[in-house]
């Protein structure tokens, strides 16, 4: 086994144009965390189940552990850091803190990225529908009730209800 195969990629991460040479076997979240030091996205399972690594790629929520960095060539990637800096989910983040919708916080970035997708749709949702929407993101601490509360409160506020 000699030198690892690498390739050049160019992508936009949180609004910033990035060009890097990456190992072809490296998945997107290892690239974001290791190379770009965006450590807000977490690795909980590395097989696409827990959702802690959820990031937005070209407007769609993806599992950062199931996508290779090379596949993000030319893409627009937004992480929790980007969502924080733009203020897009400031209300949701405030609701999470106020409602204590997190404990250890390891799932929170992924949970927020997914919940942001629900909020973007700007359609009324029942608690059941919110629970269903968030079911691809595991939380081991809260039991989900407070998370559903925080998302519901934010959604209703945005809808002026």
């Amino acid at each position: 086994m000699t030198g690892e195969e690498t390739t050049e990629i160019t992508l936009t991460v949180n609004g910033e144009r990035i060009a890097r040479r990456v190992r072809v076997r490296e998945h997107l979240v290892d690239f974001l965390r290791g190379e770009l030091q965006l450590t807000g996205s977490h690795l909980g399972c590395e097989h696409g189940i827990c959702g802690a690594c959820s990031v937005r790629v070209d407007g769609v929520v993806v599992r950062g552990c199931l996508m290779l960095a090379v596949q993000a060539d030319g893409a627009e990637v937004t992480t929790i850091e980007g969502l924080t800096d733009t203020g897009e989910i400031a209300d949701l983040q405030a609701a999470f803190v106020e409602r204590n919708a997190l404990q250890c916080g390891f799932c929170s970035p992924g949970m927020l990225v997914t919940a942001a997708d629900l909020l973007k749709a700007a359609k009324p949702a029942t608690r059941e529908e919110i629970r269903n929407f968030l079911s691809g993101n595991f939380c081991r601490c809260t039991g989900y009730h407070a998370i559903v509360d925080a998302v519901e409160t934010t959604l209703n506020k945005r809808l002026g209800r």
Partner: protein
Amino acid sequence: MANDIPTKATLTPFDRPNSYVGRNLSRPGARRAVAGRGTYTDDVVLPRMLHGACVRSPYAHAKIVRIDTTAARKAPGVALVMTGAELAKRCTAPWMGTLKVFEGMKSAPQYPMAVDRACWQGEPVVFIAARTRAEAEDAAELVEVAWEELPVVAEKKTALDPKTPVLHASLGDNLAFRKLIDTGDVEAAFKAADHVIEETFEFGRHTAVSLEPRSMIADWNPANERLAVYISNQVPHMMQYLFSRTLGVPEHNVRVVSHDVGGSFGMKIHSYGDEVAACAASMMLGRPVKFIADRLESFLTDIHARENTVRAKIGFNKDGTITAFDIDDLSGIGAYSQYPRTSVFEANQILNITAGPYKHPNYRARATVVYMNKVPTSQYRAVGHPIGITVAEALVDRAAETLGMDPVEIRRRNVMEDNSYPRLTGSGIKVLDLSHQACLEKLVRLMDYDALRAEQALLRNKGIWRGIGIAAFIKGTAPGPQGLYGAGGAPIAAQDACTIKLEPSGNVICAVGVSEQGQGVDTVMQQIAATGLGVPFESVRVISGDTETTPYGGGTYASRATAIGGEATYQAARKLRAEILVIAGALLQSDPKVLDIRNGVVVDAANGTLRIPLSEIGRIGHFQLGELPNDVQPTLSVTHRYRLLDLPYIFTNGIHGAYVEVDVDTGFIRHLKHWVVEDCGRIINPQLADEQVRGGAVQGLGGALYEHCIYDENAQLQNGTLADYIIPMAVEMPDIVVDHVQTPTGQSELGAKGAGESGTGAAPGVIMGAVNDALRPFGARVTIQPMTPEVVLQALGKL
């Protein structure tokens, strides 16, 4: 009968206008986490850091004939390849997972990695440090181990059969521990009882699944011979001892730091061989070594819990009076007893707490704990309680069913009276300050129990099968040094401590031995310190999770942080307050007794007139000492330690309710609603307490409904991914209504008891009760957890 408000009507220091006790303050740590600015161990990068990976045993039991590491050592990026035998040479002595208090207990010596024999699938065998984790894993694939398979002990039920191979020859058999508690005369009580019912229950092995796996960086500095370990952990001082003792580094030269911890639940309070290997690797290389368990490694090597079979009997009379319980537990632990807390706590706790809410005078409980070729079990959230509570509550429900009595009514007749303490449980434990009656009545109101029963009856006519469950419990929290730790000989502090300091600015630093994993420990300590001192919440900063900067303590385990660490913090704050008032008295020429501290200012106690702010006390106390008389030498720093006296635990109590719907064609269980009323004494932050209960309940429900480490007959784990091992998702879980009765413990001024496990302990029992209530019209009954659809359909005779 019900006492919904604190029992003492008089005002306490916690009712003062600037008290933060009883208030919902949000956690500063939460603001970092939602911004993606947490600092979990894997987020930390040190200069010249290497990454570790392990070769693990693919067999549950096999002899290591030969290990060839030649190719691995030559692989790209590899800095070190270390076998178990090489690591053993660097260890002072093997681990021995026994405690003196568990009389007659046996365990075999254990090295951090397998030396000549692996005893469970996943046991570490070789540790590799390389430039990247990927390169370390590549090299691990190049290690060739010649194995000779040995016979496997895979079944706890046959572990003690003469024809079953003995796992550790030096022990003579596969028995780890036996214990018997026998109070009253159980046999005579059964003979005299109107009814005796017997049932056997099965509990499937499961594990913690913290979303952040075990994570650590070992950083040995050869220049000063100090070892720093950054580790996702609950017990920094215990880990300091563990690394020191295992690797022979003097304790004061070991620093353990736990930054943000991404879930732990009791799993991160144990010894893990791969973590010691990473420390040894760092010591050999003089470079930092990071080791992050991946998810498969987590399933294979994190401690497991609750592989139990319990045969149990209840004796009761026609009027519903329960006269006796008899339980016989068989616990299948792993290949070793987990150092240093042992693997017999779970069985021991089952014996202690089963049927703990009830007044039966006769109680017999037996535990048999056996070794098998699986990863060791040990303490996981609510140790033993889910099993003991499920067993007792199921029997109480069967007694009610036999008598045609309502499940609430039979509990009403048998729970200990709220005015009857102190008293002993059937297992002989002294309990104080409990509130079973108040909690029961509050739950009935909260559930609108009669309306639920009416709805259940109505829906049955439409072929919709709903069930209601009720499960009462006691919970051992906040262990004392007379109990299993100090007295047992484990190097684990049951006391805890706070060092509180007034800074020159007038702000306050509060360093605590208890640690934070997201429960809100730091916030609760901040509230307590601010209250005890009389300063604004924002002027206190709490430091935890670092052996270098915090006073020696036990960390966070067994629902102890608020009850033990909180009282230490409160008393430290009161002592600092007293010193500040002496200094203020000297400066103001007032008697300290007529002064008070309110909102960060020394005031006249009588009328609140502002006298001198703490910023002035801080400035004078640190810089302008000439303004003070010679006989006043400010310390402005206090360490206070607190321990529980004369009791092994502060027992708490509570009760759960559940409402479920069972699809009798598919066996699926829909959990519709869950209620918890519990009594954790004085509540510091109601929101944080509620969320502990909610999260804990869902964790208990996971074990009862879905979670199961499934092993085949060769003790091979069949479901080591999150796709195959099911944990609760948002859509499956109900809203959970939480309420409290607050009976402060008389053991401390603060009056707080533990809350962190009260959700977990009774959740499996209440959901089983609800499912069986739903199945009652079919004459079917579930006694196996997890209660998968398959288990439900088998109970219905459809499979």
